[in-house]
């Protein structure tokens, strides 16, 4: 088949190129989880240490070096006048209220140098929370680290828990003002819808359920403003069925909230850790076991980590 080894080499290169072509363009492989487009830039600004002479005339004078500051400043966009919460290593460290333009800034000072997992989320005017935007960061001693371009995902909710096939279900939430919203419906075939957030960031998408199959469906959204794309919102579920049932505006149960304080935090983690590898009581099977498999293992912890609020 090959006249010499050079031809064989060329053939192999062509095959590899074909492999790449298939991977990237023709049949891109499915990813296994939601895409998180974290847009964070880190700038390091070494604190300037100035020396001021305080001696009298003719004298050499002493020197004063101000103590160096270790600081991390987080800036980004949420929703207008919304509460923005910052978590450091899974625990709430600070909250702030974003401005009318949805911009916010949070500053952490006197932080120990080391690796951290920071998370940011916001709460809209209806009490719904965005998904957690999480990123790792190494903080160095004596430097100011600026984390910019944080783009909080939209909140999402639906007006009906079950909708009669053919009727409209309203998908709504809050996002960055004037941003473009993409609503993604996870059905057998993924559907996409487009809408736009208004000047206060509110968005609404009327979904005609005529094109959906009967059964359970999931919806999520993301916002885009100029070149920036947010991470995906939380997922909200609804049923297309034979009748219409209106949904309460704020979901009462948060998965992973084991002590019912409307948060998923280290307290819930500790309760789950208590039951880790222990035989479960009937009550624990009902209230603690997050995937209902009769045991507490890493899967339950993974589910809790996904719904974490701090």
């Amino acid at each position, binding site marked *: 088949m090959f006249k010499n080894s050079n031809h064989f080499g060329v053939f192999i290169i062509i095959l590899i190129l074909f492999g790449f072509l298939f991977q990237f363009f023709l049949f891109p492989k499915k*990813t296994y989880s939601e895409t*998180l487009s974290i847009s964070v830039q880190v700038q390091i600004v070494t604190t300037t240490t100035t020396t001021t002479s305080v001696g009298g005339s003719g004298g050499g004078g002493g020197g004063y070096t101000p103590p160096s500051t270790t600081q991390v400043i987080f800036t980004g966009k949420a929703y207008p006048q919304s509460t923005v919460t910052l978590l450091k290593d899974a625990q709430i460290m600070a909250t702030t209220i974003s401005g009318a333009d949805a911009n916010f800034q949070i500053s952490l000072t006197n932080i120990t140098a080391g690796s951290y997992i920071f998370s940011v989320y916001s709460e809209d005017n209806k009490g719904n929370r965005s998904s957690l935007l999480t990123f790792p960061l190494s903080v160095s001693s004596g430097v100011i680290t600026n984390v910019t371009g944080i783009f909080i995902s939209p909140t999402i909710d639906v007006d009906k828990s079950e909708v009669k096939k053919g009727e409209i279900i309203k998908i709504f939430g809050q996002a960055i003002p004037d941003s473009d919203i993409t609503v993604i419906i996870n059905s057998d075939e993924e559907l996409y819808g487009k809408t736009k957030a208004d000047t206060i960031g509110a968005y609404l998408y009327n979904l005609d359920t005529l094109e959906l199959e009967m059964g359970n469906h999931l919806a999520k959204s993301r916002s885009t403003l100029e070149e920036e794309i947010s991470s995906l919102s939380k997922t909200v579920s609804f049923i297309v069925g034979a009748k219409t049932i209106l949904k309460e505006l704020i979901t009462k149960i948060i998965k992973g909230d084991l002590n019912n304080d409307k948060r998923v935090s280290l307290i819930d983690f500790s309760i789950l850790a208590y039951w880790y590898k222990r035989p479960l009581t009937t009550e624990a099977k009902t209230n603690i076991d997050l995937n209902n498999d009769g045991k507490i293992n890493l899967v339950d912890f993974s589910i809790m980590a996904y719904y974490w609020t701090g």
Partner: protein
Amino acid sequence: MNKYCSILLLGICFYFLLPINTMAAELYLEIPKDEYSIQETFIINIRINVGHNENINAVDGYLRFPKDILKIKDFSTGNSILTFVEEPKINQEEGLISFVGIIPGGYGGLISGDPGQSNLLGKMIFYTTSTGSAQVIFQDGSQVLLSDGKGTPAKLATKGVVFNIKELELPTEGQSLKNEWQDELEKDKIPPEDFKPEIVEINGEYYLVFSTKDKGSGVDHYEILEEGPGVAMGKLFLGQNWTEKESPYLLKDQSLSSNIKVKVVDKAGNEKIIELPVTYSLSWYKNYFIWVIILVLLSFLSFQLWYYLKTKEY
């Protein structure tokens, strides 16, 4: 035509064989050298990489090491991105190490501009006992779960380390044997991070839950002190009785009327104490200490009265 078909077919095969885009997560080990000498203490870092557009949130790691030529001295959680579900386990007899932890909110890999390597899961501290070739590897059962709300296992690749242990090179005068871990301990002067212990009800009983991190050598242990009413007097005679405990800790005083202190100590010995105020104050008449004071005062007054009456008689 047949030739083109076979190229197309082989291209499809290469699509499935090429590793690009298929890896969701990689657990790997990192050492600075590939050769150590006997009686040397060194550190192997456990790190994680995740594939593009992937997000993971739980890690279960099992590692094997040659127990006849390596001795595991410690496992450090210092600077780890994990929140550990339980204390990492080390077993010298079996040559096994295991750890399990989560990353609340998930981990999507390093971000551009991050000045450090924020992907450390833990550090294993080893001591070389014999010469030979050593291999530290991840075992079957190690798993990484996706942050998808369902705990789906991620496609996992693992990478261990192989290194050589040579005969002891006696240090020259004024030098000591290399001990990377001792150097880290000596550098660590910073106590663990602040934390907030909480009291929670689990299975009908009150437990104290607590967790913190240490950015240097890592948390070594926690100690608890429950101070019931009248403890001030006890302190004078008995001193404070700290006991080493893990979270969640079953409170001795289920009436929640004690002062609780939690001490966290890192591997270098730096410590931090957090005090919890009393949840439910006892009524004054339930406090034994107050009754002791009243009794002492009454005794003193009775004596004074008796003495006064006695002197008056004369």
